[in-house]
């Protein structure tokens, strides 16, 4: 793409209230229908009437399948309406970025919940036998999106390090039992084996299935990557193994991290053309958040940067002028041709109104930056 400052989605959207009500078998409220009506008008959603009919029918395997297609289409049209250049469907049918992948893979077992904070919990699986491919868990979703999207498509896929880091490692640690006198070393070596197998055995067949189906750009999401800096080389090795010779464009999304800790190991990624990172969250009026661009450059980073220009944890709408300023600031450091523009991370925790305004402001801000640079 020759267009300067292409804009892209980076993660998941909220779930539509009518989607949740239908799939949970709950009564469809007037507010659900109002949401559908409002956004159908805003984004030009062609399936509004179909949804209304579906919401009147009982939930059956057939109607559930239809609903899953429709919510994917809703996500596609929503993102297109904001003006983004690269889209997906807002991960409309994924439970979340971990469990969906693990439940459709081999070697894992769920025991119960673990607390994340306060009264919030998540299910954490244990790897109890060799990690492996179950089924191409994003393939149907990708086929649907690519068949219906009017913009270019980028497929988000959870990366090997995050899948391993968010799981208990029973199998690989048991394999090494008795081989290390030091428990820390035992755990570390077992982690390496685990991450590598998740990359090679679990993830690679999934990526290959997507590429075989026509995927041109896959974004590997690695929110856990900076958790343990000493383990970044495990990710690099796994990434290189699972993407070797795939023949598609690959990028990596990381957020809320001390990015400097990833270097120099992360420079060894062989097939990665872009790092999409969060910046807006740490910014202020002095552009402090974007000084990181200079630091990354000094660490040897030469790839494209997916520039996070909108903080996904606040409802404030960054106006196009601010977005443009952030883009131009980074552009002056690494050059305009290396900058893609995106929110810091997925916007699933914001309301639909806020998401729409934020994404719309991003696309307007990118356009403003283009005009400034070419005028």
């Amino acid at each position: 793409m020759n267009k300067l400052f292409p804009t892209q989605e980076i993660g998941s959207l909220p779930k539509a209230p009518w989607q949740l009500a239908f799939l949970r078998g709950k009564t469809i409220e007037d507010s659900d229908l109002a949401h559908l009506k409002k956004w159908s008008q805003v984004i030009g959603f062609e399936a509004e009437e179909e949804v209304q009919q579906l919401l009147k029918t009982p939930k059956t395997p057939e109607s559930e399948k239809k609903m899953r297609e429709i919510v994917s289409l809703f996500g596609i049209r929503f993102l297109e309406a904001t003006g983004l250049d690269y889209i997906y469907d807002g991960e409309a049918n994924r439970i979340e970025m971990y469990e969906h992948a693990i439940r459709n893979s081999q070697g894992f077992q769920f025991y119960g919940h673990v607390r994340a904070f306060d009264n919030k919990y998540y299910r954490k699986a244990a790897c109890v036998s060799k990690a492996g491919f179950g089924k191409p868990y994003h393939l149907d979703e990708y086929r649907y999106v690519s068949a219906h999207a009017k913009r270019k498509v980028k497929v988000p896929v959870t990366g090997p390090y995050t899948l391993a880091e968010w799981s208990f490692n029973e199998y690989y640690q048991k394999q090494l039992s008795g081989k290390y006198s030091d428990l820390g070393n035992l755990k570390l070596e077992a982690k390496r084996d685990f991450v590598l197998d998740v990359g090679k055995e679990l993830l690679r067949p999934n990526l290959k299935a997507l590429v075989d189906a026509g995927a041109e750009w896959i974004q590997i999401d690695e929110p856990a990557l900076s958790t343990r800096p000493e383990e970044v080389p495990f990710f690099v090795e796994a990434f290189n193994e699972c993407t070797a010779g795939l023949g598609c464009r690959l990028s990596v999304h990381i957020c809320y991290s001390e990015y400097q800790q990833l270097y120099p190991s992360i420079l060894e990624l062989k097939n990665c053309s872009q790092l999409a990172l969060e910046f807006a969250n740490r910014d202020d009026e002095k552009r402090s958040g974007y000084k990181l661009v200079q630091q990354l450059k000094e660490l040897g980073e030469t790839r494209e940067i997916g520039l996070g220009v909108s903080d996904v944890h606040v409802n404030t709408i960054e106006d196009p002028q601010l977005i443009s300023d952030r883009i131009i600031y980074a552009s002056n450091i690494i050059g305009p041709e290396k900058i893609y523009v995106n929110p810091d991370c997925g916007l699933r925790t914001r309301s639909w109104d806020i998401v729409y305004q934020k994404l719309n402001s991003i696309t307007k801000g990118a356009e403003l930056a283009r005009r400034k640079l070419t005028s």
Partner: protein
Amino acid sequence: MCSGPIQRIPLVIAHLTGIYPRSENAVGITRAFDRGKASREDVTKATQTDLTNLIAIQKAAGLDLVVDGQLNWQDIFRPFSDIFTGITPGSLSRWFDNNTFYRKPVVKDRVRLGNRTAIDLYFRSDLLPNKQKKAILPGPFTFACASQNEAYPNLPDLIDDVAHALREVVLELEQRGYRYLQFSEPYLTSTTNKTNLQFVKNAYATLSRSGTKSILHTYFNNVEEIIVDLLNFAVDCIGLDLYATPIEPILQYSFTKELNCGCIDGRNSLIESAQDLGSLVEKIQTTISPKALYISPNCDLEFLPYQIAEKKIRLLTELKSKVS
């Protein structure tokens, strides 16, 4: 430091070291509470059931010290927003390298013991067996480092006041029959330096009591660089995370204190081999001959699902039988 009415010390003392996971029932009810679908009474009842079960599990497993599992603690610091003045719970922060978060205590004013009655909400001494009661508190250094300091000119001043406030809590706990106190200090192994250590040492002098045994438990990171300093602290026992601290360097020290071996992994669901862990603990025991040996998980078991935590307790029993 201990001269009070301590029970006869077994050769090996088995105990738990942190927040215990909630049962699936309590998970469901606390979630429902957040959605307005369950009452506070429902939550209290579920927590009470979990507490009764946890005490029964510990007794049945023959643990030497019994804890209440801190089942109504939202994180290691939260109760102190109620117990102390000057602190409010702030934004979420990652708890070390875990996919678990805590609310940063925001220190807005001088830290003091404010609400003595709140102590009974968070330390359930009434249900614990006499002479086996152990309470777990955040250590003053960890408390200060994990906080957002908006009231003190520097970290040492904050550490000092937190230690004095914790001392007031310790006095209250003594009155409630606690004879073992654990101070959890994960920050000691991650951010400390020699200058800070002197302040931390002073803080433990402030906390020192003759009627209770104190365990300074370190975890998540390697304690090797500061172990010599810790051996001079006014505590009875030093705790190590054997998944973070290699044992060979530790074996070189003349261990003048009691030692807690955090040898059961609270962050992996794999049920370790009692035989393998037993060999490791015996090696430590015979090489450095600590004044007493404690065995425990390396950290809180709340990083595990409930059913796995229970298995880890049974492993602790099995391990004790191998090394006693």
